[in-house]
């Protein structure tokens, strides 16, 4: 069985044509979320244009609540954090956040005013507290690029208090572990770049993988029934922890596909049940995380297409593009070796040479970076950002983590004119006091980042095998500095640059 995309697209489109049924009107309180779930599923199927963007924007703006400053779920309904996040996600995905430029101050005020002294967030002014609302607030602020340590650090402290005896997280401190709450907590920590604060990681990983039942489906708590939506809550959590392979992906895939309605389209919670857009989206998102059914890869933290957030597709370590791309990165920050392994660099289209296996460890030696060879394979999911993280680590090894002097980078051995902005950028990057943490680059007052435009907005953090986290990004930013770099060769051509560890 495979995913019947045509049917699912038709199903999602049909949802707004149900106005002759009472159920349509009884679900107004969920409409904004519903539209987001539908849009997200369409994006995964590369069918986002099936929604009329102008209508969508109109609907979202109609849901803006002037009194409270956030978005409600339906026109004239009150603002709530849940619907506000969905609205922002929709605008982000359809690349039209600018339509709310005039409302930004009010939206920010709405969200930040809901934070309580203990770092948690209430969903609206009536006091309901839940880790879901911490996540929705933090992601909303991240989308708006307005996170600050003053907001994030207390929120992280609150999240940490919600961890339980079994390693999982609940709704508030003391409440039982639940897969969906675990997702909201881990994703918050991931946005904050503080996944290293998790205790008992092994316990948590085992608890999550024990959610898979013999029929392939996942449940949300021990001794409960399976449900398609946990394909997202559990799998995104495992993905954030870099443990997607702790369950049987093929069996889960088969279970999700069994839940399709092959006549009307859509996916249900369990085989044979009534479909809905919530399960359609989260079933599909689970398949996307696992790399099945040729779906657009989804980001496990933001639940939006990865490429929209990071400007790049994620690369699995087993993909050939991994090894192909590495020397190019090293080409930019080359540790004293300008010659790269010709086997790799020349092989732009064909398969890899025999023996050129896929571990990052080997890839390191391919890159001819003697210093790098010492590191072990730490990344299952490889992105170029990982390499930059590695470079940062080496720098810390040499200088100590509290060193204040930035790395001295010199451009030598290249005929290419030296871009001072790149030098500054890299210098700033290697200064540990300018580590990215909060969904944007936080620069202490003493540091000047010449490229201080919005090119720092596409960021991600990175969890290593040993559980520690290295926050960061960079490849996309480098690309933005070299204007011609849609052509990767020009990035590569900067390969004569040498970083001297002084």
């Amino acid at each position, binding site marked *: 069985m495979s995913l019947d995309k045509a049917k699912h697209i038709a199903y999602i489109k049909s949802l707004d044509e149900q106005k002759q049924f009472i159920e349509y009107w009884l679900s107004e309180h969920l409409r904004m979320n519903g539209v987001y779930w539908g849009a997200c599923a369409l994006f995964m199927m590369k069918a986002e244009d099936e929604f009329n963007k102008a209508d969508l924007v109109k609907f979202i703006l109609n849901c803006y609540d002037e009194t409270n400053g956030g978005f409600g779920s339906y026109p004239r*309904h009150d603002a*709530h954090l849940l619907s506000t996040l969905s609205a922002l996600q929709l605008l982000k995905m359809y690349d039209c956040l600018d339509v709310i430029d005039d409302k930004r101050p009010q939206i920010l005020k709405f969200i930040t005013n809901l934070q309580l002294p203990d770092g948690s967030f209430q969903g609206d002014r009536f*006091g309901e507290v839940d880790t879901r609302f911490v996540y929705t607030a933090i992601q909303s602020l991240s989308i708006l690029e307005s996170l600050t340590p003053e907001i994030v650090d207390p929120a992280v402290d609150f999240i940490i208090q919600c961890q339980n005896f*079994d390693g999982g997280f609940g709704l508030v401190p003391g*409440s039982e572990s639940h897969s969906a709450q675990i997702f909201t907590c881990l994703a918050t920590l991931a946005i904050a770049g503080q996944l290293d604060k998790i205790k008992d990681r092994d316990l948590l990983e085992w608890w999550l993988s024990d959610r898979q039942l013999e029929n392939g489906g996942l449940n949300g708590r021990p*001794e409960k029934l399976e449900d398609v939506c946990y394909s997202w809550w559990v799998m995104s959590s495992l993905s954030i922890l870099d*443990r997607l392979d702790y369950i049987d992906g093929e069996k889960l895939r088969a279970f999700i596909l069994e839940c399709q309605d092959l006549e009307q389209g859509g996916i249900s919670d369990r085989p044979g049940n009534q479909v809905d857009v919530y399960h359609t989206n989260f079933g599909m998102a689970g398949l996307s995380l696992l790399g099945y059914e040729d779906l657009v890869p989804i980001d496990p933290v933001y639940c939006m297409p990865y490429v929209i957030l990071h400007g790049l597709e994620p690369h699995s370590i087993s993909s050939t593009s991994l090894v192909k791309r590495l020397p190019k990165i090293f080409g930019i920050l080359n540790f004293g070796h300008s010659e790269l392994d010709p086997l790799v660099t020349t092989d732009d289209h064909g398969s890899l040479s025999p023996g050129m296996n896929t571990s990052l460890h080997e890839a390191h030696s391919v890159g001819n970076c003697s210093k790098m060879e010492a590191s072990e394979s730490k990344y299952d999911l490889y992105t170029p950002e990982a390499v930059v993280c590695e470079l940062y680590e080496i720098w810390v090894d040499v200088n100590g983590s509290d060193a204040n002097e930035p790395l001295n980078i010199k451009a030598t051995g290249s005929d290419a004119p030296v871009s001072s902005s790149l030098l500054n950028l890299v210098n700033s990057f290697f200064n540990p006091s300018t580590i990215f943490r909060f969904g944007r680059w936080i620069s202490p007052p003493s540091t000047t980042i010449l490229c201080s435009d919005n090119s720092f907005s596409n960021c991600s953090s990175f969890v290593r095998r040993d559980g520690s986290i290295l926050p960061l990004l960079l490849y996309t930013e480098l690309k933005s500095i070299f204007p011609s770099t849609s052509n990767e060769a020009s990035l590569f051509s900067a390969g004569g640059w040498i970083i001297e560890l002084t």
Partner: protein
Amino acid sequence: MKIHKDAPKITRYRAFVDKVLRHKQAQLYTESAFAETAKLLDVNPELYTIWNYRRDILLDWFKPDTPEATHELIKQELVFTVGHLKRFPKCYWIWNHRKWCLEYDSLTNWDNEMVLIDKFLEADSRNYHVWQYRRYVIDRMKLAQSPKQQAQTDLQEFEYTTKQISKDISNYSALHNRSRLIKLLFERSPECATLFYTKNKHGFLVEEWKLAQNAFYTDPDDSSVWIYIKWLLGDYFLNDLTKDQAREVVENAIQDISKLNALEAEESSHDNQWCLKTLVFLEQQLSRVTGVRSEKKNQLLEKLVQQDTIRAKRYQDAKD
């Protein structure tokens, strides 16, 4: 046909929603407006905006009143929510509304709340919202208590989990709550609970092991107790035991679980995976206590790789 049947319903419903929202917009805080919110929430309890409106009306009515008058209003409101909760016991907004009410009441009869909770847990002993509400109510009650009384309340709650578990050993929600109550009681306990009071973790562990044993003998395939055992023989307890005590406790557990697994294997001709998984953990703990590398751990993991294939990768990763 559904479309024909729905058409008049839709017209009526939309007109009604529109009317209530217009009243809300106009900040109309009258008895009749309040009654209309009730009518609308009867039809659709998920309309959070209407719950909000209801709260705004109540806030307006609370203003000049005495605690007694507010209490009367809230009492009625609590009755209103009970009706809804019976129909929709998993609706976030209703539980939230009930809590909101209690925040404004200084004369709440908490015993009534506990009676209500017990009834809901009888109907569904795993209802996430009800357990959550129970903890909330207990915390609120404790606010008015002396430290001694608070410890007594925790002990009662601990005993409640014992009751729930003995009724149904697969009640993971009860085991969860038990774990946090145990921690609270080791921090502060009434004198009558000697093991807690004297911070005798070893003594407690020996007692608690009987409960665990009873549970895993009753249903060896139920995951709840196995997860609980991982905590029971985890660092929280072992760190406070002497080396000999810790070693003895873990070795005994290994022996008991191995025995159970042998019985299971005899009956069904294959290992019990929860036994194996727990034994892996215990071997790990044992080598942590003794400093000697476990020879059995990798064998157990290899068995699990073969038998619990859907999680093979995690067993591979756990090998020494």
